[in-house]
């Protein structure tokens, strides 16, 4: 058995798919993993894949040309998932590899995505669904704060790598604002300049003090928002468990109206 250890990114995993196919070791003898295994197995050869943009692009082109946009998006979203690897479940990279193989052999991406009976397809479906959910939650629960210089800044702690999706959404929504979304888990930031596009940058050089220096208006509007939030609830319908079900506690810290209750 040969095990390809990929970097946990779209590029890394797709390079792994390329290398695995090109290795000629036989698909049945190959597994991909997206992180360094805790325990090495006996009778397995471990091959470390170094991510290559060129190889990944080739795989993406093949997927796009032969199976279309929808199939690529599923693969992409699955790769963006940050779900912790559980022993019982199939590895992300392995699921993507097998799903791509299946599509190649059937020649039909749509059909593959619907065959949830296949363990690898089901795994991709699960990962996609989780990433989508996380992305949608952040569209809703992300909060901007105005800084002294008029820039809007937000800090998030997502499980999955959804920053590009958020940046896309907010660039469309707030084209005339300068804003910054800081993803603390992945140490990345999306920076948007008014009437221009956005950039994704590493967050190593981000001044963490500066993004907390709020303007005077900010505190005023925050107070107004908190007052609105408190008054909009109906006392005779109070229902903390429903509230918690709808907005899970891990999002509370990043919202001004609920972080008060933590």
């Amino acid at each position, binding site marked *: 058995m040969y095990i390809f250890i990929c970097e946990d990114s779209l590029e890394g995993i797709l390079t792994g798919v390329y290398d695995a196919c090109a290795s000629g070791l036989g698909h049945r003898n190959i597994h991909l993993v997206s992180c360094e295994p805790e325990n090495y197995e006996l009778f397995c050869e471990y091959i470390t894949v170094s991510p290559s943009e060129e190889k990944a692009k080739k795989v993406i082109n093949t997927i796009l040309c032969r199976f279309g946009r929808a199939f690529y998006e599923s693969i992409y979203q699955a790769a963006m998932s940050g779900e912790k690897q559980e022993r019982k479940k199939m590895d992300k990279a392995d699921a993507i590899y097998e799903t791509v193989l299946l599509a190649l052999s059937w020649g039909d991406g749509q059909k593959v995505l619907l065959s949830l009976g296949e363990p690898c397809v089901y795994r991709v479906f699960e990962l996609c669904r989780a990433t989508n959910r996380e992305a949608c939650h952040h569209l*809703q629960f992300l909060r901007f704060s105005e800084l002294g210089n008029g820039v809007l800044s937000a800090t998030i702690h997502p499980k999955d790598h959804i920053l590009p999706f958020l940046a896309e959404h907010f660039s469309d929504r707030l084209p005339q604002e300068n804003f910054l979304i800081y993803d603390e888990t992945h140490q990345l930031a999306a920076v948007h300049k008014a009437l221009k596009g956005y950039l994704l940058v590493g967050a190593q050089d981000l001044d963490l003090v500066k993004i907390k220096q709020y303007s005077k208006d900010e505190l005023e*509007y925050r107070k107004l928002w908190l007052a*609105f939030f408190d008054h909009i609830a109906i006392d005779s319908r*109070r229902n903390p*468990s429903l509230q918690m079900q709808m907005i899970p506690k891990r999002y509370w810290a990043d919202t001004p109206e*609920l972080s008060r209750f933590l």
Partner: protein
Amino acid sequence: MKVQQSMTLMEKLSILADAAKYDVACTSSGAERSGDKKNMGNCVAAGLCHTFAADGRCVSLLKILFTNECIFNCAYCQNNCNSDVPRASFTPDEVCALTMEFYRRNYIEGLFLSSGILISPNYTMDLIYQTLYRLRNTHHFGGYIHVKAIPGADPLLIEKAGFLADRMSINLELPTAEGLKKLAPYKSRNTILKPMRQIQSGIAENRNEIAVYRKAPRFVPAGQSTQMIIGATPESDFQIMSVAEALYQNFNLKRVFYSAFINVNQNAQLPVLPGGPPLLREHRLYQADWLLRYYHFTVDELLSRERPDFNIYLDPKCDWAIRHLEFFPVEINRAAYHTLLRVPGIGYKSAERIVKARRTSRLDFADLKKIGVVLKRALYFITCSGRMMYNTKLDEDYICSSLMADRTQIPRDIREGGYRQMTLSDMDMAIAQS
């Protein structure tokens, strides 16, 4: 009634959010619009909920009244002219500032503007129109706006507001005309249904215009909705659902909302609800509402004059299935989409997935589970390749008792409230059914 000039924005917001909270509709769905460089804002068709208040209801829009200084005396409303509550009015600019600043911080998806009747319906509707006009044209707001049409306002004003809003609604308030007459003497069925009809035909006309000229301004693109108060008057579920069905069919409404009655005024005309608002009843009505809109059920199938109320222990779909065992079991690999929709435990999404997935391979119970079918409800009613999941009987009493053992029949949040929400009328229903 005196307008306090010195009131701060904070005080006004507190009073007018308080006054608006009994309105149910806080959805931002139905409109899809991407942003452009000039405006701030876009709309997502599915709608986004930005937070959830302590009662677990979503906060999607900045839900406020323009004013709670009302000349009407509707008995169920805390803002009626006889009740002793602090009064306040916004100015159009204050509403605009709040909306814009909240929107850019991603607190809200847009504005929900309702109002008490200040001076006259026309005067109030004009103020609302001015607010929307400024928001759209001075502040270039491109987000979602849900606005109430004021019953009795001039049709021209309603039309002008409709071209600025995404969704409009006029509250039906009470399911029957008698109830309305008794509790809201200044409102009548006529003044409520007339603007509703006007908006409906406006939307239809506008659709034709857009077909001819793509850039024609949109009139109420997200459709109209309404809401009814449940439990303030003695209507049965059958009457309520029949009204809702008629509204969907004759007025093309997008949504009908149901609001469990809360006695805010301690008014002697209204029932006292010692168990709190009838939340479980409201929940069942919403479930049935979904069956009407997404599952092709009709009210006559779910309820009848002899059985006018929903079973509180079972959801309406299970309840229907148990009484119509002649339709079951359904073969998953062959049944039509519409038949699948009627099986408890199969939602419209999973029905769609089943229809697509069975083209490639035969489906088994394990596949159904992955597709998202709730097997603990569905297993009594389906076969896969001619086999049932377990050795279950197709027998009314047996299935009924098995389904009742499933605690999720009553949603967790209502159940965990220690069932305090079960009201006297609910208990009557339970006794009548047992």
